[in-house]
């Protein structure tokens, strides 16, 4: 699960050059997830079972997808404040048109992805801060969601509901899905050659432009990917909840940003980790269950998520400082 564990290069003494800090930092997200799971296991050993994990991690899947969407945007040094209401919008479309008129529903969702691509294009061409544009889009998606479903209702398409409630043998479905998302995005962003270009345009945009790469293209690609994963997140959420609500994805914006950062990503500089982001999303989801088992009111859930974030970031800062002192 270590996102930056590398293929070994036998002939060069690379271990001397690579820092132990890099491994520790990369291991932090996995460590925090393990701690939360251990906490749950200690409080209620029966929760760590096929059904228990299924129940606890179910809602982690849409969060993980939204976090991945956010991570694409953060890779190119932008921030997407609209992902939460976008998930709500997708949920409303999925629970209404996608069930009643699948073709129309699909067209709407496709257009929504095109809007995301356009947002990326506008941010690049007009060099407006992404926060401004996506803050505007936050209200657009919210408004559209309320227009579609003024009050909670609708019903998930049967195929979607069936897919999200698959019973896989031995390993719970949410665990498999999380692994699949992490592996797919890790391969695409961290292993392919164009993935390196995408990350590079977050790391040193000037250098990329000087080498002849189009920053316009990388920005549009990243926002399109964010749109696609936002749609997947909304669909997954509706498949689980079976009905929709215009506010269903409300908490996702901050949760997704927290997930990316918790997973080892940084706001600027193209330093992100897809595997870490998925782990971060699951950790934040499981924190809710842990509180339940501790008999603490769900009202404290957001506070607990914040506490986890602070602890992990503090640990990261300590590692960084120790590393600097070693140099």
């Amino acid at each position, binding site marked *: 699960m270590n996102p930056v564990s590398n293929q070994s*290069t036998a002939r060069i*003494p690379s271990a001397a050059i690579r820092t132990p800090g*890099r491994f520790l930092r990369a291991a932090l997200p996995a460590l925090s997830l393990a701690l939360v799971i251990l906490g749950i296991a200690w409080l209620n050993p029966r929760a760590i079972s096929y059904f228990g994990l299924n129940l606890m991690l179910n809602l982690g899947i849409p969060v993980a997808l939204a976090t991945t969407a956010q991570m694409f945007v953060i890779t190119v040094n932008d921030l997407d404040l609209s992902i939460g209401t976008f998930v709500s919008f997708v949920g409303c479309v999925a629970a209404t048109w996608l069930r009643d008129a699948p073709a129309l529903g699909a067209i709407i969702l496709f257009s929504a992805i095109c809007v995301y691509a356009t947002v990326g294009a506008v941010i690049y061409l007009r060099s407006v801060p992404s926060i401004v544009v996506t803050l505007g889009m936050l209200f657009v998606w919210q408004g559209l969601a309320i227009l579609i479903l003024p009050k909670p209702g609708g019903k998930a398409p049967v195929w979607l509901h069936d897919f999200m409630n698959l019973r896989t043998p031995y390993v719970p479905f949410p665990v498999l899905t999380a692994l699949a998302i992490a592996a797919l995005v890790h391969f695409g962003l961290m292993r392919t050659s164009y993935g390196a270009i995408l990350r*590079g345009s977050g790391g*040193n945009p000037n250098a990329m432009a*000087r*080498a*002849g790469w189009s920053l316009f293209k990388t920005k549009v690609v990243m926002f399109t990917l964010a749109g696609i994963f936002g749609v997947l997140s909304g669909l997954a959420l509706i498949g689980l909840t079976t009905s929709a609500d215009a506010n269903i994805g409300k908490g996702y914006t901050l949760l997704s940003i927290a997930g990316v950062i918790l997973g080892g990503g940084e706001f600027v500089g*193209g330093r992100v980790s897809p595997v870490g982001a998925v782990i971060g999303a699951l950790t934040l989801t499981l924190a809710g269950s842990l509180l339940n088992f501790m008999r603490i009111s769900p009202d404290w859930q957001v506070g607990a998520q914040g506490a986890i974030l602070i602890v992990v970031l503090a640990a990261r800062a300590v590692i960084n400082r120790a590393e600097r002192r070693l140099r």
Partner: protein
Amino acid sequence: MRELPVNTVSLDGVEKHFGAVRALAGVDFAVRAGECVGLVGHNGAGKSTLMHVVAGTLIPDRGRIVIEGEARQAYSVVLAHKLGVRCVFQELSLCPNLTVAENVHVLHPSIAGWRWRKRAGELIRGELEEIFPDHRIAPDAIVGDLPIGKRQMVEVARAFTVTKDPLRLVILDEPTSSLDSHRAGQLLSHVRRVVAAGASCILISHLLGEILEYSDRIMVMRDGLVVASDNATQFDRSKLMTAMGGAAARRMRLAEQIIATPRGTTAVRVRAHPATQSDGIHLVAHEGEIVGLAGLSGHGQTEILLSIFNGATRRVPGISVTDPVALIAGDRQSDGIFPLWSIAKNIGIRSLAALRSGYLLSSELEDRLAERWQKRIKIHTPNMRNNILSLSGGNQQKALFARALGSEAKIVVMDDPMRGVDVNTKLEVYDLIRAEARTGRTFLWYTTEIEELQNCDHVYVFRNGRIVADLPRGELSEELVIQSSFQEGTTP
């Protein structure tokens, strides 16, 4: 093919302007196949701009670019790469978040598909081994984790790697700035090998020894023009210095109206010791003095100005400052103006305490201050309440001068404040600075333009964060300033 002295790359009459500043004033330039051209010149002579034009990252306003005998229209980075023109820029252009191998792919899009990392890694490892034997850099190391010297080695080696496009010309802009002498020697020997194999190289360096030893031909730039170009054997260190500084006879004219105050008669206002200075030399500024800070840019001048500025309000080791300090920033867009505010507000911000009536700011006092300085410094605007961006660059800079001079500060530190300012404004401001110094103000003036040092009573030349020359105004000469800024660390 190679009997004729074919020009690999040539430029005809290339001009480039940045606002009012003419960076290139019609440069003719040619590099032949199989030669290494050394390019020297003082700060702002236009070397880097010229290289950006050759590399395709800057489009010239006028002029022709000819590569392999063909005039290139729509010349761009992509075309430059295809034609085999590579550039190692002065500021590092690797992506710090990617691995060494991934950075190689950035330059070579053709390395893609199955096992691309391994191929890119092998390419760069081979090149590194050829240039810098025993380099100990793993292709899968993340660039940001490498020390700066190794980063520069990677960047230089990357520029020499070849995939499907040929390697015709490599531009090295200060390639040895972060390398120790051993590694620098390895690199420069490699340059000779590459040149012997028929490729060409442009070498920019402020280490004149490197230039003299390793180039076939040397070009000297000054004020956006190539002022000298000849075989390297025709030059020596002093000839190069003379060419960089203009005609040999051109000693600095000392502006006669200033009567130099003998040092030590007035009170000491600033005493500063650069953090990296090992000997006991201090930067000292007395009341009523204009003290110049010279040397190549980025050699510690801005840092010491900032620590003097900080030293006025809190304790900074090695710095003692007796009076309030005002700072005039050189990079006016990012450090100087408040772009959303009016001219008057931009001037008043340094004097808020004086502009108060009761507990509130008085816009009447603010306007009065602004109008006083509009008259004094001649800011050309119908109304001082207009937005600061309605002014031309030179007038914006005047507003920044008004901000500092209108304040109560007895010490004014200036961080190359005349960048991109037109000549007339400069002359007006020089007069103003001298007039203010006569009233007892102290100025610390970092400038990259040697001519501006004429206005100073005393000049300190900086190199590598240390004061290397301490010149009273009687001893000041352009040659001496250039000589001390270019002197090498190792004795020549």
